[in-house]
């Protein structure tokens, strides 16, 4: 379909238009605005979204992921340079986002210099940043102490927390610690208990945004792309009318809707990874140098009161 087309889904009994969703998937690679209107998904092409046909949003936030600062292998010899390009794009956005969420793998090897370089660049965006760690951020001798010292102020456990912004409840989860042999990402009993308590007092109308590094839904278990107790976390959020789950880790855009829960993974700013099962391993995917920036990018998320869409636009660095 033409990427400028707009999908206006007719609602199934459960409020989800699956035809619209599947079409939306077909151009996920070029850039997509994907909206939750009153908890119901809509989608439209990036060019339409950029033409500002949507009502003006009172606030926008941004998702950035998997910057892997320090990575210098053939798939991208300079991950810091592509992060710089991503930050430049953020600075050029016509509407300044209220804040940024980084869904982990800030660094490649948890070295101080990598965190320092990432921090210095990301700071240039001039907006608050909320982090959750990826497995690459916990490789210091203290197994995550560096991360917590830098980014974990006010958080619980391995770095989980929540905050509220203009009526939306945001929850940052950590699913990259104490991983078990043969398993997937893991939240653990303590964090699940905290989550249950955290949302206990919220009305079901409160829009929820959950973010974590590894997808909370099972994308591809053979490559470890999922969270073993993710379903338990999602069950705790089932009563809410609108839940948006933002993840990273798999270095590609993927989305899915289940009931009132919308899932989305962001591109990396460092290097792409193959589609599930399309390569011998999920390692860094080498693409022609001229194409790399089509595989890297950021995502903006608009929240509009009234129409109430929660709209995600994936923006590649090029193409």
């Amino acid at each position, binding site marked *: 379909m033409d990427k400028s087309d707009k999908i206006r889904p007719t609602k199934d009994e459960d409020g989800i238009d699956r035809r619209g969703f599947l079409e939306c998937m077909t151009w996920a690679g070029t850039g997509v605005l994907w909206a939750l209107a009153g908890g119901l998904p809509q989608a439209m092409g990036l060019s339409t979204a950029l033409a500002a046909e949507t009502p003006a949003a009172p606030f926008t936030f941004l998702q950035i992921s998997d910057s892997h600062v320090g990575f210098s*292998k053939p798939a991208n010899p300079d991950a810091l340079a592509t992060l710089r390009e991503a930050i430049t794009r953020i600075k050029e956005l016509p509407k300044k986002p209220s804040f940024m969420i980084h869904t982990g793998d800030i660094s490649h090897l948890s070295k101080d210099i990598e965190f320092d370089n990432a921090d210095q660049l990301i700071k240039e965006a001039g907006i608050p940043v909320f982090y959750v760690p990826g497995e690459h951020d916990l490789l210091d001798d203290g197994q995550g102490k560096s991360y917590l010292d830098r980014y974990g102020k006010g958080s619980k456990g391995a770095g989980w927390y929540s905050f509220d912004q203009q009526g939306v409840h945001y929850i940052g989860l950590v699913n990259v610690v104490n991983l078990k042999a043969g398993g997937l990402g893991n939240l653990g009993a303590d964090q699940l208990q905290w989550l249950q308590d955290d949302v206990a007092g919220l009305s079901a109308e409160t829009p929820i945004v959950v973010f974590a590094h590894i997808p909370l839904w099972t994308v591809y278990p053979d490559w*470890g792309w999922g969270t073993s107790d993710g379903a338990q976390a999602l069950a705790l959020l089932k009563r809410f009318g609108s839940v948006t789950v933002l993840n990273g880790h798999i270095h590609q855009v993927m989305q899915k809707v289940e009931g009132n829960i919308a899932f989305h993974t962001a591109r990396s700013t460092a290097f792409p990874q193959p589609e599930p099962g399309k390569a011998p391993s999920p390692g*860094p995917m080498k693409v022609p140098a001229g194409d790399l920036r089509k595989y890297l990018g950021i995502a903006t998320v608009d929240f509009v009161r009234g129409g109430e869409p929660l709209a995600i636009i994936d923006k590649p660095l090029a193409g």
Partner: protein
Amino acid sequence: MTFISFGISRMAWMASPVLVGLLLVAAPQLAAAATSEVTVKIANFTFSPADLTITPGTTVTWVNNDDIPHAVVETEKTFRSKALDTDDKFSFTFTNPGEFSYFCSLHPHMTGKITVKK
């Protein structure tokens, strides 16, 4: 043994304790030299060989050939490597018999096993 005894009996009396001593230590040394170093390759998010049997005293060295870091962690914490970047190595010498299951703490779907038996 009969042959050795016969040989010693033909040697000078003073030399025989030395020879016996050499023979006693020579056999275990040769066995150890044949099996003391084994490499486990890490490539395409896989340990190979994933299932390895060795004798006590063997040193196993893991080498990461991937463009992404991995770590080697025994499930009971008997050994735990730091993150191994491309071409980095980690070695552990197994002195006691037993089964040692391990995995990559970054990518726990990667698993392997070392069996140590005499």
